[in-house]
Structures are given as C-alpha cells and as structure tokens.
C-alpha cells in the first residue's frame, strides 16, 4: 500500500511497535485529526496566524509519525504561510488538507479493518 498518501515503511514500523495497540493508534489518529482540522479552520476564520501556525505544526508532527507524508507536507506549507502571516493562501491550503485527510481517512479505515 505504498503511495504518496501513506508511507508503507512507517506503517510497518508502527505495527511492530504497537502490536495489538495498532488499531487503537489508528482510531486515535482519526479522531484527533478531525479535531485538529476543525481547529485549523477556526483559526483561519478568526484570522489568528499564530494559533494557525501552532495547530499546523502540531498536526504536521502527528501526520509525519503516522506516515501520512502528503498530509504532513501540506501542514508544513500552511505552517510556513502562517509564520509569514500570509493568510491569503490559507483557505485554499486548508481545503487541500481536508481533501487529503479524507483520502488518508479512507486508507486508514481500510488498514483498521485489516487488523480488526
């Protein structure tokens, strides 16, 4: 299942490390990420670039740990834009993040089923 969305090497390591807790980790990621995407949208609407930067940074870290490479890259772009207080691109970037998260979500749920 190697593609630009998920890094299969990272997932293998995660399975090794988490063992039976692997599905719980996926569940936690999916639930936490929905909350984080909501925070991104909220900060953008409120025009709070520092809050947006921190939220993007934090989400980026989780995504990279979970092997969601493209999602992590998009978070990195948003973080950089927020640091430069360039919020003009932010709504478009957040839209991309939501779309990518939707794909990653489908892939993780499939992964979840496989390891039931």
């Amino acid at each position, binding site marked *: 299942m190697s593609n630009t969305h998920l890094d299969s090497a*990272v997932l293998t*390591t*995660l399975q090794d*490390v*988490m063992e039976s*807790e692997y599905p*719980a*980790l996926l569940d*936690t*990621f999916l639930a*936490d*990420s929905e909350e984080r995407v909501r925070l991104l949208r909220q900060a953008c609407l409120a025009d709070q670039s520092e809050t947006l930067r*921190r939220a993007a*940074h*934090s989400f*980026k*870290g*989780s995504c*990279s*740990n*979970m*092997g969601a490479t493209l999602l992590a890259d998009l978070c990195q772009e948003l973080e950089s834009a927020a640091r430069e207080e360039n919020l003009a691109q932010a709504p478009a970037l957040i839209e991309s993040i939501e779309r990518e998260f939707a794909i990653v979500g489908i892939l993780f749920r499939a992964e979840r089923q496989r390891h039931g």
Partner: protein
Amino acid sequence: MPMRLSILIAEDSPVDRMLLSTIVAKQGHRVLTAADGQEAVELFQEERPQLVLMDALMPVMDGFEAARRIKQLAGDELVPIIFLTSLTEHQALVSCLEAGGDDFIAKPYNPIILEAKIQAMHRLRRLQATVLEQRDLIARRNQQLLDEHRAAKAIFDKVAHAGCLSAPTIRFRQSPQALFNGDLLLAAQAPAGQMFVLLGDFTGHGLPAAIGAMPLAETFYGMAAKGYSSTDILREMNAKLKQILPVEMFCCATLLDIDPKQGSLRVWNGGLPDGYLIGAAGRRTALASRHLPLGVVSPAALDDKFEHYPLAPGDRLLLLSDGVVESRNANDELFGEQRLLAVLDANDDPARLFDEIEQALLDFHGQQHDDLSLVEVVVSPEVITMPSIAPATAHRSRPMDWSIRLELRADSLRSGNPLPSLLQILLQVNQLRSRVGEIYTVLGELYSNALEHGVLGLDSSLKCDADGFKHYYDLRQQRLQALVDGHVHLQLNIKTSPHGGRLRIGISDSGSGFDVSRALQAQFGSDRFSGRGLHLVRQLSDRFDWQSDGRGLSVEFAWQAEA
C-alpha cells in the same frame, strides 16, 4: 546492559503521546505522561523522573518554560531533557538549547535512535552523579582537613608562641597557613639576655612539615629557657630532626643569636636565602648560607660554626624564606634575588625597608602572596623581660647552706658550657627565680671573661671593628682547639635564712690576670666592643670584689625574705 529508567513524556498530541509511550515502555522504561507543560512540571515534582521527552509547542505552558522549571527543580542533579521537534526550524532549536534542552529527536520517531539517545543521556546522568558524589566527598574531606589543620595549628601556636615573637622589636609577615607551607618562625629571650630567632623552612607541605616543626619548637624554647647556648640548641635541633625526619625531608634554617649587651651577632644559616644585617646608616651585610640544612647530617658531622658580626643598637636583621625570591606571579615570572636586591639598594631609610619589600611583593604579584615568610628584628639595648621560666613551687622554702665548686679543664672548656647546669641548680632556690636573668647574665660575663681573656689570653681590643670582630672569634676557636693546660674555677655559695639570703659567685682562672680597676675605667670609654663586661656585672650584682692580681673575681646577690 540498558538501564530501566523512569521517563516523563510531555506531548499534547494524543497520537504522538501514545506512540512514544508505547515505544519507550517496550524498551523497558517506566513511563509517565503529561499533555502540557504545566502538567509535566507537576508530575516531575511528584515523581522525580530521571529523563524527560518534551514537545516544544504545547497548550497552557509550552515546552521551553517547562524545561526551564524542571532544570531549576532538578538543581545539581542532571535530568536530561530531549526535545521532540522537527529539525527544520533553527530558531526553535536555539530556544530548546536556551531552555536547557540536552538533545533533540525528530518526528517521525525512530525507536532505535530514540533508545540510543535515552541510553546516551543516561550515561551522561551517571557521569554527572559520580562527579557530584566525588565533589561532595572532596568537599567533606577538605573540610575535615581544614578542621584538623585548625586544631593542629591551635596546639602548635601554644608551643610556637611560647617565645617572644610578639616583642616590639620583631616584625614578621607569615601566612596563617605558614605552618602547613612548612615555614616556621620562633623567637626566644635567653636568660643571659640574648635573643634567639629561628626561621625554618621544611621541605614539603602539609601535615608532615607541620609535625616536624613541633619537636623543633619544643627543643628551641626548652633549651633557650634553660640557658643553653645557640650552638647547643642548634646541635640538638639538628640531631632531633635527623632522628625523626625521613631522608627526603629536612629543614632549611637560619638561627640568629642576638646579644645587644655584648654588641654581637652570631649567625648560622643552613640552606635559607641570604639574610641581611643592615646598619642604621644603611650598610648591608649578607648573612649567607654556609651549611647544609637541619636534619641532613649526623650530629657528629654537623658544622656548628657560627659567623660573628658586631651589632649596634638600631641595626636591623632581615630574614626571608625562599618563598620570597622564588615566588612567581600570574605571568609565571620569578620575583628573584635581583628584584629583592633592587629594593634593598633603593632603600634610604632602613625603618621603611620592611614595608618596601612587602609593597614590592604586592606590586609584583598583584595580590597577597601566601607562601612566604619575612621577619625583621631591630636591635634594641633594652632586654625584654622574660616570663618566669618555671612557676614557683608552693611549698615554703627551707633554709639552705651549701656550696659547690667546679673546676673545668681543657677538654671540658673546649666541649661544654657549664652554665645551663648551674642555672638548673640555682633554680632550686625559690627566692632566686625572680633574678635568674640577671644572675645568668653575670655568670655568662664572668665565665666568658675567664675563658676568653684569662685562659685563652685574647685581647678584647681586637673587637674594635667588624674585621677585628671576626678575627677575635677565629682566634678564640683556634686557641680553644689547641688548649692543653688551663682551667676555670667556679664556686657557688648559697646561704638562706628565714630573713633572706645571699648567693656568692667566685670565679678564677689559670690566666695571667688583669688590672680590674683599669678595665672598669675602660667601660666608660667610647669603645663598646672592648670592655670586659665588668661594668654590667657590677651594675647587676649587689656586691663586686676582686683579688689584687686580677685572677679571681667575686660577686654577690642578696635578698630579703618577702613580708
């Protein structure tokens, strides 16, 4: 063998926290988790984990602030903090370091790298703990050592300051720790009026040097008080040190025998830098080392020859330890003899010399330098009153009536000094104790007159200048060595009653006699070196008679019983 540690994970993202704690727990460590900085600090206080994995950006309190507080709480103990951060932002990395971070680890987490870092930090921790333990141990030992030094010094000071170091004519500078630098300064007033000064410098430092100083001081003070000559004291000190010191230890020393009444100085310098005799007019004579230090040669091989110099009131004697010339400043330059001589040359008022040397040392070092001793004695005609050498016994004295007669012939004249033994006998008479100094002076004068002018036939007019002075003592030595016939008779008579008593001292010799009245006249002449000290004898005693042939003198001390 990896160690099991207790590790605090502070991370606000539940995914990362879960992942990290699983990795760390699987590696065998005990895991504590916190979701923000505030929680992390509280948990640290409660559980005292040994290592912290800290996310930088967290709500409530961020990782930087939490790291600062944890480092503060940890105090001396090393609690390594590894920051969890992506390594792309340089400014963030700097902030991590500033907050006390010890290392970083980037996401995504790699279990192998993580374990390697944890173990590396743990080794650092153990190293730090060992260093702290040893530091505390050293501090405790050092404190212990200082306490022991203080106690040893208190005991030693009782012995060392038994003498007259506090006399107004003596000035010295010595570090309070001098004893443990191996430096030793002693000064005693002898019963016959001389002042003995000893500056010693033991090889080595610390307790061994201080321990060697003890018997030296005891010997010096004990013998000086009993009226032994400086030669006897020197021989005894050398013998004692030779006996007790290990071969690599010895004591460089200068012994001064200052006799203001005779106007003479005797010096023995074994291994110390030149001392100086400085006349009131600024004339300077170096008192150079001519001997091996004390404790090196066997008693039989010791060269106990003192150098003789004339002394006048106002003359100054300066002694210094090698710490003065051999001290180095911050640039590792040697103070050196040249600098000292330059200070001596530049001096135009001997009274200010001591200050000038101290100032020169201060200027050179930029601070007080501790490992040196400097002492100055001003020759004063006044005799410092001695504390009584032995407390008077409490019982009432019984009446006494006795006499002893002593005849010293060539071999005994050569080798011995009968006066200390006589003094011990006279000290049995309680009523004499208060006048023992005067009696000893008189005995000393009479004995040296009888020996030098009578038996040896030396002419005191030789001692008219510094060269003559030296010549006189060389001759004395030669004639004494060559002496075959000749004697000195000494007789002591004691008679006491409940109302008082008297001591009569009679002395005669095998010499040709001399004109006593003329010698007494000469006392009032300008030549203070050539007198026979008779004027002094007459002044100190209560009665003074002589035989018409000038070969026998008689002196009396009388006293009334206390009311």
